[in-house]
């Protein structure tokens, strides 16, 4: 029993991730979220030790030596690399030495059986053992291994000792990972980090080692080393071998602690785990992720206890897809479709809970207050509540407001959510539809998220009006069923249209006195802006199209030998797919300004510093900065690709022509010189949200520059209103 006790074992639970205030998190807290032990500075950039080795336990890893391999960085997550301590130029363009540093850290491969290591440099790496379904006979990570630093795992590192020694199962035994999968995971990792409260594993880099997988039919696919970051603690780690489940208790406790879900109670002055409360927290986190998937119209596609993190974060993203409407799509043959995928998650968690429960001794059950967990019941209730809350957010309400309404007016929220769910489930035909290679445009009978996206503007223009015709129009009924079914469908749509208006009005009425809204006008602005932005379809992330586009880019890369191709497609896809207003407010870093304002969402993208600046009295600015330095009688822009030099006159006459509405309208703002920087300030209002992109040009001519390394990359932003600013202020204060 002492194995899960000891002084401090249950102290220092990791802080939970809060998308809205993430920018106020300390660097140490951010590293901990990534599974990095900042106290133990090891690794090439002193990034810190991989915590997973201690959390899951070294005995659950197969150790093997990898050899250094030559390669090139096909894509790098510049901001994540900086967070992990790598020295990456502000322009985001790797120099020879910065690329060398990345490769030195992550370009490793496990040599195939029979290959001599010779005098090559080696590194001990760790393949994690886990159990569960869909493992293809492996004992865990068959082609992935953790580095001892950065909590980085390399997917496609080669056959690990856990890979089956079985050539008949080619897919699970060749040890490689497709480059395409690296980019898919890179995109989804960043998008998930924006969309999901519990976050996601993310990709640090995709390394091209020049290898290919040769399939038995003779076809070839380009491989890569896919460098993955994040806690990466899977429920399946608790299922390792199943027969060994009696050791799962301590792993569960440590894992829950690192995911921030460990709940403790005091026993004789000592903090000890409260098992059931901890399980409830984990169940709620998974229910929230499942509900968020519905709200964002996303399917994971391959749910299993090894394809998710214990704390509810997304993991293993190669099958993930969005969709234009709300059709019951699936990706793998055996998987549950959209609106039902949560049932798979539930059955996986049930299995894990059972194994952990069975593993406790009698004494541990007493100490940790262990009772049988009714996972199905708890998950079901949590899913229903979370989905109602998510759909209230999809109506445009702030997270805090939706949460409070679930406490104060649950019937109002669930009544509205019920109508939305019924509309979402209307289809032209029964069944489930494979979205692996097809984007399904004709299965859903209505576009319910278009209604949620555009209705607030109409509603707040005249809340007491009869909006029935507009609601029907905004649903854009798409009925392709046979005449009889079409008639029934039409009637049902009419019924739901009639129910939606009053349900929506009741929801807004319940929210209008919430302290998160300064007044009625502020609420109308906030709801309208959030709904319009967040309910846009994720139209670059349909699996059928995204994978095809990436294959084309990989072909182009092979032809042109230019890795910038990937930066262009990945960075822009991510930028265009961020939808969570809370996460945009909390993106980047935050700091106090000398004049009492806060600078939020600071990010350096392709050499340009972007931020949102906000002051308590209401002033808001989008703030851009370009560092300048004197050079040969002119001024160099050292962080911008190509480091151009401008004359003093050109610099003073620098203008930024920008758009926040996809170039429907443009405005211009003039530069201001402030010491060693030129700055641009764009007035905005609280609750504004959008994507900023533009061109810099000198009014005196002969110079102009796009705000991206290639074409427009843009800066997605969300501007806090007074209440959100106050929350961020408090978060910064608690850090200080």
């Amino acid at each position, binding site marked *: 029993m002492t194995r899960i006790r000891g002084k401090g074992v249950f102290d220092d639970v990791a802080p939970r991730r809060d998308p809205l205030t993430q920018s106020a998190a300390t660097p140490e807290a951010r590293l901990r979220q990534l599974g990095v032990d900042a106290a133990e500075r090891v690794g090439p950039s002193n990034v810190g030790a991989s915590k997973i080795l201690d959390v899951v336990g070294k005995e659950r890893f197969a150790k093997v030596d990898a050899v250094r391999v030559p390669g090139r960085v096909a894509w790098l997550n510049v901001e994540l690399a900086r967070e992990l301590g790598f020295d990456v130029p502000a322009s985001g363009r790797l120099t020879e030495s910065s690329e060398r540093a990345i490769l030195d850290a992550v370009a490793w491969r496990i040599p195939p059986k029979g290959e001599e290591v010779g005098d090559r440099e080696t590194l001990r790496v760790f393949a994690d053992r886990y159990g569960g379904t869909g493992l293809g006979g492996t004992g865990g990570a068959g082609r992935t291994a953790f580095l001892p630093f950065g909590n980085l795992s390399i997917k496609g590192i080669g056959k690990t000792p856990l890979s089956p020694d079985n050539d008949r199962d080619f897919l699970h035994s060749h040890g490689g990972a497709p480059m395409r999968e690296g980019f898919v995971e890179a995109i989804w990792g960043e998008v998930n980090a924006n969309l999901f409260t519990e976050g996601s594993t993310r990709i640090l880099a995709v390394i091209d080692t020049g290898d290919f997988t040769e399939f038995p039919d003779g076809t070839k696919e380009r491989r890569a080393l896919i460098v993955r970051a994040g806690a990466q603690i899977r429920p399946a780690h608790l299922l390792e071998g199943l027969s060994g489940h009696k050791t799962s208790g301590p792993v569960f406790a440590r894992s829950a602690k690192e995911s921030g879900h460990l709940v403790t109670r005091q026993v004789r002055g000592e903090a000890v785990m409260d098992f059931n409360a901890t399980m409830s927290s984990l169940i709620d986190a998974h229910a929230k992720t499942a509900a968020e998937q519905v709200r964002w119209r996303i399917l994971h596609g391959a749910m299993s206890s090894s394809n998710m993190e214990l704390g509810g974060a997304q993991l293993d993203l190669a099958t993930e897809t969005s969709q234009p409407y709300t059709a019951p799509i699936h990706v793998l043959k055996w998987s549950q479709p959209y609106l039902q995928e949560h049932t798979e998650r539930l059955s996986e968690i049930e299995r894990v809970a059972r194994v952990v429960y069975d593993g406790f001794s009698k004494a541990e059950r007493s100490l940790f207050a262990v009772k049988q967990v009714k996972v199905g019941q708890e998950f079901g209730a949590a899913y229903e509540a979370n989905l109602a809350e998510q759909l209230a957010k999809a109506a445009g309400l702030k997270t805090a407001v939706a949460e409070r309404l679930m406490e104060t007016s649950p019937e109002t929220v669930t009544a509205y959510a019920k109508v939305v769910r019924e509309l979402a489930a209307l289809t032209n035909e029964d069944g489930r539809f494979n979205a692996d290679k097809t984007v399904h445009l004709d299965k859903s009978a209505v576009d319910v998220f278009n209604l949620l996206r555009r209705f607030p503007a109409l509603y707040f223009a005249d809340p007491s009006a009869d909006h029935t015709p507009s609601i029907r129009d905004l649903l854009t009924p798409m009925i392709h069923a046979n005449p009889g079914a079409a008639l029934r469908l039409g009637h049902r749509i009419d019924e739901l249209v009639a129910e939606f208006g009053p349900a929506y009005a009741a929801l807004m009425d319940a929210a209008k006195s919430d302290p998160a809204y300064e007044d009625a*006008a502020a609420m109308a*602005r906030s709801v309208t802006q959030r709904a319009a932005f967040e309910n*846009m379809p994720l*139209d670059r992330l349909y699996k059928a199209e995204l994978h095809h586009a990436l294959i084309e880019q990989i072909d182009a890369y092979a032809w042109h030998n230019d890795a910038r191709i990937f930066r262009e497609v990945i960075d*822009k896809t991510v930028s*265009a797919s961020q939808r969570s207003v809370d996460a945009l407010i909390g993106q980047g870093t935050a700091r106090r300004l000398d004049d009492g304002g806060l600078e939020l969402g600071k990010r350096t993208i392709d050499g340009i510093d972007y931020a949102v600046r906000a002051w308590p*009295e*209401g*002033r808001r600015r989008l703030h851009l900065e370009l560092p300048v330095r004197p050079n040969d009688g002119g001024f160099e822009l050292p962080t911008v690709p190509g480091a151009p030099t401008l004359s003093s006159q050109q610099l003073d006459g620098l203008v930024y*022509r920008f*758009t926040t*509405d*996809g*170039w*429907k*309208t*443009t*405005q*211009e*703002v*003039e530069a201001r010189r402030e010491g060693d920087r030129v700055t641009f300030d*764009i*007035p*905005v*209002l609280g609750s504004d949200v959008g994507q900023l992109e533009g*061109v810099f*040009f000198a009014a*005196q*001519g*002969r110079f*102009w520059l*796009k705000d991206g390394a*290639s*074409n*427009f990359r843009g800066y997605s932003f969300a501007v806090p209103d007074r209440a959100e600013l106050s929350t961020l202020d408090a978060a910064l204060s608690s850090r200080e």
Partner: protein
Amino acid sequence: MTEGSNGDALARIVATASTQLDLLADARRRPEIDRAGLAQTALDLLLESIAREAAAAGGELVGFAERFEADKARGLDVRRHLIALGADWSCRHCKNDVVRAVILTLADDVWKPQLVCRACGRTSPLAPRGIAALKKRFGARLEDPAWDPTENGFEVSS
């Protein structure tokens, strides 16, 4: 102008044009982009680039530069300059400082400007810096009752 400097100027124009082509190609891959709007910006910048080179070249090419400048001034869209016109301004009614539009009223044959607040939709007068910015861009036209300000993106109140 020498042959070499001609070549340099052409190279700069081609570089500008080439990047505009990149922009337009990029827009074709982005369903959310207003291609007409982006194409207009691309054309503006290309013409600007050519006009600058023409002005620098001197001689008869200056005529093109002058024509371009005149055309640019004639077609100036005030909606693109709301930030300069809103300098030091805040709405008299709600204190926000984001301008949605500029509204002109003709009184005694002079156009009187007001700014429309994006937050509350009400109007209030420009600050001195905003007036200076307006005069710099539209100068004499503000005293021309025959001018149609709507062609330059203004709203007009009777």
